[in-house]
């Protein structure tokens, strides 16, 4: 059957005619209309778990809850158990005042329990499936190169496409769930070879390895949703996809996706498709953007400071948006310990929270001695979404510092580089 410009299989046609019920019909109609908007001619089966962005039970999300109810009432769920972004609250590891707890539990995330119940009924992988870095080894939602997906969560999408070489569009919340339930995604954009070609060449000409979060910010702000092909970064990162490089690209990618709308980038001699195809990935009329030390300084100087008192002592520090890998937790532990020694202190002065996937936190805790060392520094480990924590008038007024450009973009948190964060967290003042 041809539905407007899209060729449908017999099964898809039957679904669209209501053969599997009204809710399934609406789910497929949504996916088809979405695909048609971008010229998709067909749907493709997806044989890998989806990753959802919507993890939070904010009562205002009534349209989402209503859709979930309809899916549940119709007995629909995803074929493969899925992962979802982090939970918004963890009072055990992220200290909150009584009034904050009340605001979180009763007002902000008053529908959290109900919503998590809905997620379970439509295919959630488990109680520990809440992280934005579902692709960590410990979590296991790791797509293969070339595999078609339907993911949301901008940082996970850009990672899956760029670092793993899988194929997913930047799907919006709930649309990804509908694709998971229908087991299909429309073929357009990043699911096509042409959609994965670069219309920008980024020339990195910095004097040293650029701060991942600022480099990503610069690229995102310049190319918006286009695909960049990054040259010169391999001089600092090398050509092997080590865990350190995966972590760097995770953080850089999250900044490209939040400061712009990048869903895929290629790093010359490093990311899978750039290794396979090289400059053939670059379109003929691609534009060029040169990033040097001065450009990175200009980008960073342009970040507005949203604190009322711009010289306030930080009330809290968040490290890990997106969630940290186990290697990064170790790296931060070493960085904080070194800074404590340098400043002659024993514990951090700023309430510091590192965030990672529940399975990553558990794996770190199982390692002999490391967890005790971290506890001794005063740093906490949690698995929340710092952005969700910040999204309320009480927390938004606090002087929060972060090394995350994504958190900076969506909240009043103030960005500092990794090295600055360590100094400030230990000293308790931004005057370092």
């Amino acid at each position: 059957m041809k539905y407007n410009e899209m060729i449908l299989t017999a099964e898809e046609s039957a679904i669209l005619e209501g053969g599997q019920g009204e809710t399934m019909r609406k789910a497929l109609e949504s996916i088809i209309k979405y695909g048609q908007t971008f010229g998709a001619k067909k749907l493709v089966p997806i044989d890998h778990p989806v990753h959802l962005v919507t993890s939070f039970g904010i009562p205002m999300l009534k349209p989402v809850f209503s859709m979930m109810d309809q899916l549940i009432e119709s007995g629909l769920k995803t074929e493969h158990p899925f992962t979802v972004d982090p939970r918004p609250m963890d009072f055990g590891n992220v200290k909150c005042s009584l009034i904050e707890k009340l605001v979180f539990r009763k007002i902000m995330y008053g529908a959290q329990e109900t919503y998590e119940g809905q997620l379970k009924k439509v295919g959630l992988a488990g109680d520990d499936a809440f992280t934005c870095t579902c692709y960590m080894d410990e979590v296991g939602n790791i797509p293969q190169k070339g595999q078609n997906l339907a993911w949301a969560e901008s940082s996970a999408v850009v990672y899956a496409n760029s670092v793993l070489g899988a194929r997913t569009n930047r799907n919006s919340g709930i649309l990804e769930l509908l694709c998971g339930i229908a087991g299909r995604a429309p073929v357009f954009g990043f699911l096509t070879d042409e959609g994965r070609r670069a219309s920008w060449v980024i020339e990195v000409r910095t004097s040293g390895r650029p701060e991942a979060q600022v480099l990503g910010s610069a690229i995102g702000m310049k190319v918006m949703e286009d695909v960049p092909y990054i040259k010169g970064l391999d001089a600092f990162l090398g050509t092997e996809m080590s865990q350190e490089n995966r972590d760097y690209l995770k953080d850089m990618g999250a900044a490209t996706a939040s400061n712009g709308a990048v869903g895929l980038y290629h790093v010359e001699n490093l990311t899978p498709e750039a290794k396979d195809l090289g400059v053939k990935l670059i379109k003929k009329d691609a534009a060029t953007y040169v990033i040097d030390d001065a450009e990175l300084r200009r980008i960073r100087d342009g970040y507005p400071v949203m604190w009322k008192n711009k010289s306030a002592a930080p009330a809290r520090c968040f490290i890990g948006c997106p969630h940290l890998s186990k290697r990064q937790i170790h790296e931060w532990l070493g960085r904080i310990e070194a800074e404590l020694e340098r400043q002659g202190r024993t514990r951090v002065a700023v309430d510091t929270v590192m965030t990672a996937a529940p399975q990553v936190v558990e794996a770190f805790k199982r390692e002999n001695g490391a967890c005790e060392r971290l506890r001794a520094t005063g740093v906490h480990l949690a698995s929340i979404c710092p952005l969700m924590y910040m999204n309320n008038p009480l927390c938004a007024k606090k002087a929060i510092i972060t090394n995350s450009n994504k958190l900076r973009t969506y909240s009043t948190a103030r960005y500092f580089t990794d090295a600055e964060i360590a100094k400030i967290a230990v000293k308790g003042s931004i005057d370092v």
Partner: protein
Amino acid sequence: MSEEYKGRVIIAGRLEGEAVVSRKGFNTLASFQKSAMSKKKEAICGDQNNPEVFGKNLTGKVLCLPKTIGSTTGGMVLQTAAHLGIAPAALLFSEEIDSLAASGVILAEIWDDNRIITIDQLGSGFLEAVEDGDKIEIDDTGTVRIIKEKTQQN
């Protein structure tokens, strides 16, 4: 004085309204989250990175933009804003609509029967010509008319 542009209809409708213009990518989550979370009756743009629209009322306006950018909650935020009655009345894209905004307006229409009139591919000239406060006339074939009689600003 009026200028006319023709685009592609994503969600059809007729409307007369007032333009709010974002010449850079419009970050849906950053723009709507504060107003939506605090149950405001109007959405005041909260995107600190977009000074052109930061602090402006978006509700019921004709939002003129190249694309939406940012978090993949964007479409859901748009769908929710429509449900709460604080969304723009129309979205006019100079470029091809992005995947997040498309999801939002499509889900709002299919699942909630909320229609945000949406037209894309109006061209860069449209975004160069339109200014905040311009009166905008939209018809259901994708024709957009900019009328340069300034209405009252926010």
